[in-house]
């Protein structure tokens, strides 16, 4: 029941908000209510695990619960931010905006809870579609261009992923089963009997297809344009939640192929895509002067780290699961802080912004904290998760991968710090007087900053055991 409610509650909210019955204020209340109920249901899954429903098509395994918790927490912070945001920038009443936000939450929950791979694919397609009106919120020429690029590239990715799903079904039919097809648990248990050739083909198409949605290099080209033009909370939702859902798609096929004994085939591919993403991110971050596009390349970097952690295996898989949460929280924090800067100054061109710490002290502090969090500096959580991935690489016998990763992370740190510190420090623009910022615009990012800081200092035992079980299902282990 709770599993179905996790999908239906936001879906119902989206339907209610899409009608004309509610006033703008009530609509936002509806959004907040859906976010709170969703988080409460997610929390209840931590306390009392839910039985699979609908013949095993919906279930809450550790891997799914990690992603679900991240999506749910991030969404509540973003829903609170949207109250403040829609007061500042809201060309058309926000009806479509609010209902698409909730529609995304419903689709993301479907992706996370589906243990039937076809159903999961439907959820991923729905997340892609629900994002389009959110990116197009401003209805101007630049956001039109951004949404066109996003849709063309993502739709090709999702189509290739469907072909990968068909390959997976063919592998399962060839394995000689007579029961229902495409249920995750069956796929994992029957994988050793399946044809390795079809499984490899399925892996490649799903990696490229979901990798496109995730924004792994070289399929990342939609990301800078889309993140550059999308409203701040939409960018945060994409970088934190949408990409995590797409990553879960890759994690599922890793589960299946690992069980089939194909780890030696998939790991070099994962490491290759991971390192390439880090390299592309490093090159473009150094030459970047637009702060929102800077965040997009930072997202490419972190997606690279996620697949790299899976590729090195061992404790790397634990590091990846921890990094998924840390990255989601840090991206939410940084996108919202940058969003406040852009709302205040009207530009995202870094050389024209100075002294944010003086003119907008709270957002300025959040911006600097976000910079250090996202670049993996201690004491923030990303330091811990990146270190775990690094030690996974060393222990897994990939010292050169570890060395390349360290070098690229250092370059990325220098590139990001040089841009963001310029924006934060210095004399403030006289045309930008110091004002008190709305609590709605700072509350969400403050909570996210607290979360990512806490995870750097202390990992609760319940979270540790969940992450360890999720890593075990991916063929890895806990440190």
């Amino acid at each position, binding site marked *: 029941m709770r599993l179905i409610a996790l999908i239906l509650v936001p879906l119902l909210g989206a339907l209610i908000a899409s009608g004309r019955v509610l006033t703008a204020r009530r609509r936002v209340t509806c959004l907040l209510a859906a976010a709170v109920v969703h988080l409460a249901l997610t929390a209840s899954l931590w306390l009392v695990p839910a039985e699979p429903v609908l013949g095993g098509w919906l279930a809450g395994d550790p891997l799914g619960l990690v992603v679900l918790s991240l999506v749910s927490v991030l969404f509540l912070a973003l829903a609170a931010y949207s109250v403040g945001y829609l007061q500042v920038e809201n060309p058309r009443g926000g009806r479509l905006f609010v209902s698409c936000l909730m529609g995304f939450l419903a689709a993301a929950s479907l992706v996370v809870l589906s243990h039937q791979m076809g159903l999961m694919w439907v959820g991923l397609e729905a997340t892609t579609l629900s994002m389009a009106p959110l990116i197009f919120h401003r209805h101007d020429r630049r956001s039109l261009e*951004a949404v066109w690029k996003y849709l063309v590239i993502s739709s090709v990715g999702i189509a290739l992923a*469907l072909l990968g799903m*068909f390959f997976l079904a*063919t592998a399962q*039919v060839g394995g000689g089963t007579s029961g229902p097809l495409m249920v995750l648990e069956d796929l994992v248990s029957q994988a050793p009997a399946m044809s390795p050739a079809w499984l490899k083909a399925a892996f490649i198409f799903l990696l490229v297809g979901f990798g496109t949605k995730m924004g792994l290099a070289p399929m990342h080209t939609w990301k800078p344009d889309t993140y550059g033009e999308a409203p701040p909370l939409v960018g945060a939702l994409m970088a934190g939640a949408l990409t995590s859902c797409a990553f879960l798609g890759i994690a599922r096929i890793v589960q299946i192929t690992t069980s089939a004994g194909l780890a030696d085939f998939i790991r070099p591919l994962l490491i290759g895509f991971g390192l390439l993403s880090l390299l592309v991110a490093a090159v473009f971050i150094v030459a970047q002067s637009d702060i929102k596009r800077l965040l997009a390349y930072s997202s490419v970097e972190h997606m690279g780290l996620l697949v790299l952690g899976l590729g090195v295996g061992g404790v790397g898989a634990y590091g990846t699961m921890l990094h998924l949460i840390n990255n989601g929280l840090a991206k939410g924090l940084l996108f919202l802080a940058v969003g406040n800067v852009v709302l205040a100054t009207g530009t995202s061109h870094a050389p024209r912004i100075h002294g944010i710490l003086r003119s907008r002290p709270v957002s300025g502090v959040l911006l600097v904290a976000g910079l250090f969090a996202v670049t993996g500096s201690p004491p923030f959580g990303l330091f811990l998760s990146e270190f775990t991935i690094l030690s996974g690489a060393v222990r897994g016998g990939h010292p050169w991968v570890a060395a390349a990763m360290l070098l690229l992370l250092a370059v990325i740190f220098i590139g990001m710090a040089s841009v963001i510190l310029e924006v934060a420090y210095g004399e403030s623009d006289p045309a930008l007087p110091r004002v008190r910022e709305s609590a709605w615009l700072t509350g969400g990012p403050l909570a996210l900053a607290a979360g990512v800081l806490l995870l750097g200092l202390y990992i609760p035992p319940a979270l540790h055991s969940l992450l360890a079980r999720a890593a075990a299902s991916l063929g890895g282990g806990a440190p």
Partner: protein
Amino acid sequence: MSHLDQVLLLTVVLTNFVVLGTTRLSTCIRAIAVQGLLLGVLPLVLHPGAEPGLVALAVGTVLVKAVFLPSFLLWAIREASVRREVEPLIGYITSLLLGAVAVAIAFAVAQRLPLPEQSLALLVPVGLSTVIIGLLVLTTRVKAVTQVVGYVMLENGIYAFGLTLAKRVPLLVELGVLLDVFVGVFVMGIVVFHINREFDSLSSAHLTELKD
């Protein structure tokens, strides 16, 4: 595999080459309409016996791929007054040669992926080559409408491969229809672009304001 389905599948490959070689946009759209029709009747030819699930799949596919999408695209061209030429980034001869390479690659790859059911083996290379040629059209044609044509071909290729599973899991194959939602969004986007006059032309090569 009977004689008729082989003829149908090879005609599907031929329609790919019509799209690659033609200079006229309307010919492209008619070619994918024919392709949709061929793919629509295939499930009945491959699995004779008129099972309700397969008949529904065939009827739905013909309606969507052979009737609705092509007329929607032709309507969009009229509505947005798109110029009738294809405007490729690479020449027609090069396109056709690359198409031939794609078919060769598809057959070579299919050799290494034996189907559990041997009688359907020709679906694999035909599906893969249509996917590759669809991607080729998508990336080498300038106009937004032609890109949509390429996307429909990509989708048709995936559907052709899906037919190997049609008897076992028709529902999974029918999921492909959700990809047509994207096609609908693209076509509406094209029409709305024009109405808003936000772009001078529909060419996505003009979508270059955002660049590093």
